[in-house]
């Protein structure tokens, strides 16, 4: 019963070397703990080619000689800052680097069951794939590895994940893949298309803003050959990585005096690897008060987390606003309308968003009116 750990988009970088390598270490540990037969890494292991050059020694050292096979499919990021460099010339130790374009087919039989790996490294375009002379499937399982955007998998996050070419899901079903191990889209998702499972494990660590939710890898267990062909594949299981951290975003309305709401309660859930973003909103009497509040937050929390971004672009200042009785009257009435937690103890997210936005719109209107009066 072969076990496969599927990960992608770690974006190891010299700039965040320690964090990145810690996550990589957890990936290796997980593979060992879960006794996997293969680790398939589907692109953007390194943030840039330059990072690959710099960190490959650490990579080799940490990977060592594992009891599993590490299949490494390069993504679009390994192409960045390449200069005249050639990834195929770099030594990645025990890893099997799958860089043959447009595809290559490997057959392995770890775990007593033959598995074929159809590796499709990132490429500029996949046109003509219908003519690829991929041999007919000759093993109980075929796993396809690719790095790109599979059309039909509900692409989200405009421009963030550009740089890779779209791939038709037909490419995988055509060549009888049972599982499409994908990389490039940083949001985790899994979908059955034409009898095959298409999975993006999401980025292995929080690499940038808006990558919400836990990060980690997918564990796929291939049933034995006899049962497998009839029963099909079970859904892969997600294994979160503690070292990967989480991205958490808070929209904090500032008082007219520039005081943010208290974050203490929320901060109890934060981990050292978390990426925290705080977005201030509102109109304040004095912009400096907002800056001071940001400094206070930083002083209090920055050391506790991997990154703390405080966004003050949603804050505007209007001297005299604090003395406007109607603004105060509005804020009182607004506070009184704060969404209450429901029976499950949770606040309706959309009601919360509406409530916050109503404040933002009203304060902006106040500001516009007061500026006009002045």
């Amino acid at each position: 019963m072969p076990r496969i750990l599927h990960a992608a988009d770690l974006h190891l970088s010299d700039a965040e070397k320690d964090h990145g390598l810690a996550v990589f270490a957890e990936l290796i540990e997980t593979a060992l703990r879960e006794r996997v037969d293969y680790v398939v890494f589907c692109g953007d292991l390194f943030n840039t080619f330059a990072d690959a050059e710099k960190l490959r020694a650490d990579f080799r050292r940490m990977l060592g000689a594992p009891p599993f096979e590490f299949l490494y499919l390069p993504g679009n990021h390994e192409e960045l800052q390449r200069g005249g460099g050639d990834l195929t010339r770099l030594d990645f130790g025990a890893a099997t680097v799958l860089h043959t374009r447009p595809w290559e087919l490997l057959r392995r039989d770890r775990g007593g069951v033959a598995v074929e790996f159809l590796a499709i490294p990132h490429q500029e375009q996949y046109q003509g794939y219908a003519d690829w002379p991929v041999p007919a499937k000759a093993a109980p399982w075929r796993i396809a590895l690719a790095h790109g955007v599979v059309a039909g998998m509900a692409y989200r996050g405009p421009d963030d994940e550009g740089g890779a070419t779209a791939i038709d899901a037909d490419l995988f079903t055509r060549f009888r893949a049972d599982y499409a191990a994908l990389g490039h889209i940083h949001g985790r998702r899994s979908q059955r298309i034409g009898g095959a499972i298409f999975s993006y494990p999401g980025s292995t660590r929080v690499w940038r803003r808006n990558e919400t939710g836990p990060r980690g890898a997918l564990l796929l267990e291939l049933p034995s050959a006899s049962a497998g062909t009839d029963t099909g594949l079970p859904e892969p299981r997600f294994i979160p990585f503690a070292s990967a951290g989480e991205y958490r975003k808070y929209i904090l309305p500032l008082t007219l005096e520039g005081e943010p709401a208290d974050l203490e309660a929320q901060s109890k859930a934060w981990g050292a690897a978390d990426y925290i973003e705080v977005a201030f909103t509102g109109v304040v009497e004095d912009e400096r008060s907002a800056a001071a509040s940001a400094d206070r937050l930083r002083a209090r929390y920055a050391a506790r987390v991997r990154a703390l971004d405080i966004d003050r672009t949603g804050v505007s200042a209007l001297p005299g606003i604090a003395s406007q009785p109607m603004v105060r009257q509005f804020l009182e009435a607004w506070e009184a309308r704060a969404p209450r937690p429901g029976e499950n103890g949770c606040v309706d997210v959309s009601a919360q968003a509406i409530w916050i936005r109503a404040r933002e719109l009203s304060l902006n209107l106040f500001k516009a009116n007061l500026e006009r009066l002045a």
Partner: protein
Amino acid sequence: MIEKLTLTGFGKFKEAVFGLAGVTLVYGPNEAGKTTFFDALFQAICRPSETKKSGKVLKARYGAGRGALAEPLPVPISDEEFLNLYAIREGDLRLELDKGTEWLEKLKSRLFHGGLDPSAFAAEFEKRSSDSRTLTHTRELEKAKATLDQARRELEAKKQERNSVLAREKKLAEAEAALQETRKLLRAGAEEAVRLESEIASEEKIALRRKWNGYLARLDEWQQSGTEAETLAPFRLDRREELKSLRDATVKAGAAIQAERGKRDQQTDLIAQAKVETRGMREAKEAAAIRSAAAAKLAASAMAYLAGKKPRGGLPVWTIAAMGLAIGLGGLGAAWLAVKLAVASAAAGVLLAVSAFILGSRAASAQARADAAAALARWKDEWNLVAGPGVAQSTALVGGASVGAVNLATPEGFLQAMETASREKENAEAREWEAARRLESLQDGLEKITATLAGLTEAEALAHRAEKDWLARYGVESAESYAERVSRCRQVDSDLGKRRAELETLAGGSDLNAFRVDLHRKLLALDEAGVPQHGQDEAALQRLRNRRREMLKEQEIVGGTERGMIADREGLAGEIRGAFGKLAGDMVAWEKAVADAEEEVAGKELDKRAAALALEIFRSIGYGADQVLAGLSGEMEAMLANILPAGRTVSLQGLEDRQIQVMDAGGGMRSLDQLSTGTRHAMVLAAKLAMARKHRPGPGLLVLDDPFLAMDDERETKAMEMLREFHVRHGWQIVLLTKSPPLAVKAEGIFPGLRRIDLAAFA
């Protein structure tokens, strides 16, 4: 507060500096420059742009070089604000609030919550949360939704296109399979064509052999026909008539023989009959001799019996006659019928006679009858022994006499019968003789016929021999054979020419012997080539050829189909290759467009819902505005109370002219335009003061040019007192312009510390 107003080149005032106090009275009769002073103040405070109407008017009126400087420099205010709120020109007391000017908006804002009007906010958010399609945000939301729908449609279209490509690819695979099938057909067809070719070639050689053999056979037949023609040469001249006459002679002789033979046969039959008759006569004669002897004996006995008795009148005549008839019958029967019948007839006759006798003698006495009966019985028995029982009866009948005529019951009768019977022999002998004569005659006739027949037979044999000899001369069996030979001879003669002509045609004009040699040579070559002796017949060969032709046609059609299929496949494959990959990119682009549009729509819908919440909040705050309006109306009321007698209620629904209502003298509420001039002026003054104070957070300036013209003296005084109150309480600077000397005097009395400027001194 403006303390100094310096005018240069401003109408009448070339160089003038005016010192202003908290309340300044500017007095000047007509043409003294009161209006110029007002305009100079307007210029100094509002500094109107020369591109605007008021600026243009000032420039036209006082020239481009005019100068008006107020010190300290006041914060500039708009023309409309100054003219509507802080100034009254020449007694022109109007509110004109419904012009919707900016100052009024500011006033409204400042009146409520530090210058902000919650109802304005509510109105704004009502718009933003409204579904009205005339509003921009609704149109933008609809546009965003339309963009989203469009993106979804495009995405769906791309998906469809992609699925269609996949379907077409499947079709391509099917086309490929069909093409392979077609090619298989083509190959099979080609193989069959080769096989057919070979078979046909072989069959054609066999056919050639058959043909050449046929020619040879015809050559042989022709030669045989020549030989036959020679053998049939005697028959070339038709002599069938000759043969026919011979034949006729034989037939005629035969016919004569036949006729004679008929006669002979008839004669023979007659002789046979005569012989039978003669034999019968002889036998009848012999039987009649026996009976005649017995009858003679019995007649003798009867005669003896009768002779021993008295004759009783002798033997009746009819008895004798009966006996005679019996004999006669017996004799006749013997002559014509079988001997036994004759005997029987004779016996019957006798019996008849006896019976007749017996019957006749019945009348005798009983004794005599008994004797007679005994004698008769005895005789009858004897007779019967000879003639058999019943013969007597028969004899009687044969004798031709009736029973009654020959009475056999009597001895007489019996005697008569017996005598008759005794003569039967003679009759029989006569008849035998006649029969013998007749037989002899017939036998003579037969001899003659036989002699004639012999002659005829000889003649016939001669004729027949002549015919035979004739036929033998020609070597034929019969006339028919001769006729056949003649006919055959003619046919052979006829065929011979035709065949030769045909063979010469086949030989192509060459000599027929050479042709034969050539045919043999060719056949030998076929043998050497191993061509089988026998193949299919011509029809089968033709079927093969037809099949080959059809096969070629089919191959041509299938080949065309194959070419079409290849072209289709190439076209389809080209389309598909172009579409794959590109479509995935398009789909992702449209998925992204859908996501963007969804985000935009969500953002706009969020804004709309947030606006609805804000509307709710501002509506709840908006109730406070009523209180503010009530406060302002109270202030107006208080000011108005300074001018008008008795309390006049002022009601403000808002700040539009029509929304301001004042109680008239009669106690009814009237809108501003329905009040008396004096009351309206008082109300407008009160309202302006109230609003001017509300409009500015701090003290301001009021410039009033003869504001009390429509008021009576008492109201004028009260109004001035009200101004004083206003000045004192709120610190506002007042500049009062007038052309009225009494008013100037009155003002000096009412406003303590009033500074008076006489314009006449500056002109």
